[in-house]
Every structure is written in C-alpha cells, then in structure tokens.
C-alpha cells in the first residue's frame, strides 16, 4: 500500500518547490495512480487547518476539460478562488463562471428563507442551456435541502453541454461542523482544502441511489470512494446520437 501524504502551508510550498527540482518527488503521485490508492486528507499542523489530498477525479476532470476546445466554459459553484481562476484561465484557457451557491445558502439561512431556496435556484444559473463544458460542484449538495438539491441538479443538467462534465463530492455522514470547504487546485491532481465558517452544517447527505435518481440525466464517468467515505463523482452528460 502506498500512501501519499502532502503537507500544506510553508511545508506544502517546500514540497512543491522540491518537486520542480526532483523527479523522484513525483513518484508518490504515480505510485498512487498505479496502485489505485486514494489518499485520505490529513490535517497538516495544529496552526493550519488546511489539508491536501490526491484527487483522481480532479485529474480526470481536468483531463476531459483540457480535451475541450480552448473556448470551453467552466462553472464553479463555490466561492471565488484567485489561484483556481488563474489555473483555469491561463493554463486551461477557458472562460469561468463563478456562482457561489454556498453564499446563497447562507444568505437564505440568515434571512430565514430556506424554504424559498428551490424557487431561488430555479433559473439561478443564468447561462444558456447546453452552454457549459464543465461544472465544479464541490460538496454543495451536502448542504442543500432535498428540494433545493433536486432543483440545482436539474439546473446543472440544463446548462451542461452534451459530453460536459460535473464534478461533485458527496459526504458519507452528516456533521455538526459549521464550516464550508474551499477547494484550491494544488496541482492537476491534488486539492488543498481550506475551511471557513458557514451558517449551516453538512446535514443532507445523499445515498448513492438518491444521487443516481437526482442526476438521472447524467452518466457516472468515474467514482472514487475515499477512506473517509466521501464519494468523488465525475458525471458526464450523455451525448445524444
């Protein structure tokens, strides 16, 4: 069994700098790839709540995205992250739409209007139907009540192009932790998780069958089950023949 454990903060920087200068530092990633080991996120230090982990679905997501034309359009359902924008804009060369659904959830909670979320999310993503090549949905569905989740899923299926992909993370169990996660691209196959306060907790964990029903218009392209129980699922919209 091979385990890749990357560290964040300064040590993460050192890791990255070291990687540039040493081929051997790349090897753990390849080992992980070859032996199909998925790495558990780990807390890096008491002073830093950040974690870094290998994400096979991110690598595949970017792989598929990179195969799209240069004018591909990506939608990020999380808060804006400058380094991700730079990565997607400069290295992948796509147009990025930032639609922070987490902020929408918090706003509705603060205004005591959670019941209105489904209505709000209908037409929330103001782009043409079938115009988006890829969606980064992160773990937003863990925080949405069922009706709102169903509405958002329908919206995603509406805006995705045939062949377009959606990356979502689905938790294994509910949690009382009042924090959302920001997902930073560490590189093309690693994500750095940084946490920030939220108005709600991870309450609405979906079972596999719920996910399959909710995203019936999409096919599961790849699923990776982390040891934590989190399911990273890469969906693809069917191409009509």
């Amino acid at each position: 069994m091979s385990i890749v454990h990357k560290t964040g903060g300064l040590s993460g920087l050192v890791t990255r700098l070291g990687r540039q200068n040493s081929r051997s530092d790349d090897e753990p990633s390849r080992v992980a790839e070859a032996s199909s080991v998925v790495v558990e996120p780990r807390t890096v230090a008491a002073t830093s709540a950040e974690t870094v982990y290998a994400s096979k679905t991110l690598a595949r997501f970017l792989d598929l995205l990179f195969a799209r034309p240069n004018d591909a359009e990506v939608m990020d359902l999380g808060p804006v992250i400058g380094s991700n924008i730079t990565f997607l804009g400069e290295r992948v060369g796509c147009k990025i739409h930032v639609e922070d659904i987490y902020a929408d959830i918090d706003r509705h909670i603060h205004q005591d209007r959670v019941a209105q979320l489904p209505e709000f999310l209908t037409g929330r993503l103001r782009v043409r139907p079938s115009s988006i090549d890829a969606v980064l949905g992160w773990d937003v569905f863990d925080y949405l009540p069922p009706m709102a989740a169903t509405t958002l899923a329908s919206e995603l299926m509406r805006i995705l192009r045939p062949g377009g992909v959606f990356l979502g993370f689905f938790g294994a169990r509910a949690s009382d932790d009042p924090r959302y996660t920001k997902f930073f691209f560490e590189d093309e196959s690693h994500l750095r998780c940084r946490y920030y306060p939220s108005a709600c907790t991870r309450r609405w964990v979906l079972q596999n069958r719920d996910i399959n029903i909710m995203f019936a218009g999409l096919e599961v392209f790849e699923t990776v089950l982390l040891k934590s129980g989190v399911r990273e699922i890469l969906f693809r919209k069917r191409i009509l023949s």
Partner: protein
Amino acid sequence: MHEEKASIGKSIVINGELSGSEDLTIEGRVDGKIELRDHVLTVGSNGRIKAQVSAKAIVVLGQVTGNLNATEKVDIKETGSVEGDVVAPRVAIADGSHFKGSIDMQKKDQPEKGVFSKPESKSKSETPKTDTAPVNGEFARV
C-alpha cells in the same frame, strides 16, 4: 517630473460617461460608463461603481457592479467586490474578495496542450468505468 494623478473624491457622484487619458482613482460614486483606454483605473475602498468599464488595467478595492474590460490586467483586492463579467488577459483575485460573474482571460498565446503536465495513465480510454470491482480495500469504483 511629477505626474499628477486624477482622482474623484468620496463625496463626488457622477452619472454619465467618464473618459480620459490619464490614470484615475475613484473614491466616490460613478453610474454610467468609464473609458480609460491606455490608463489605469483604481476603484478605491470607498468607490462605488455601477458602470461598464474599459481601461488598460483596473484595480478594485471598492465595489463594482458592471462589466470590466482591461487590455492588460484586472486586479480585485481583498476588500474589493465585483459583480459582472471580466474580460482581461490577466486576472488576479485576492482571497476574501467578492466576485460574482464570469471571467474570460482570452488567452491569445494559448500554450500547447502538451505543456499541461498530465500523469501518463490519463491517456487511457475514456470509456466510463463499470460499477463493480472494489480494489485492494483502499478504494473502489462504485
């Protein structure tokens, strides 16, 4: 030689079209359209803009509602807030800033696709995985 920097103060409100050929800092309020083709527009921390903006570079510390078009760079600082579409070859967005809209970096000299490093295994077939076969107890494709 000392070059004066133009600025619009906190108490100034402008409705309409604003254009010029020097760098400009806005601390007041502008509703309409701003054009500084070859110069830098800075929206100060007190600035409130509701406008379509075109400039060489745009730095945002205050609030902007409207589309930003820069020939060089858009820089949204930590205190900055932008709601609109950004078109610029370079975009920097600080952690903690607010952004809602789209970003098009219109990269003309797009790097060759091969420049993007990818693990070798990714050249495998893109056939969707079957929903079977747990692998070595560590993870499973389900």
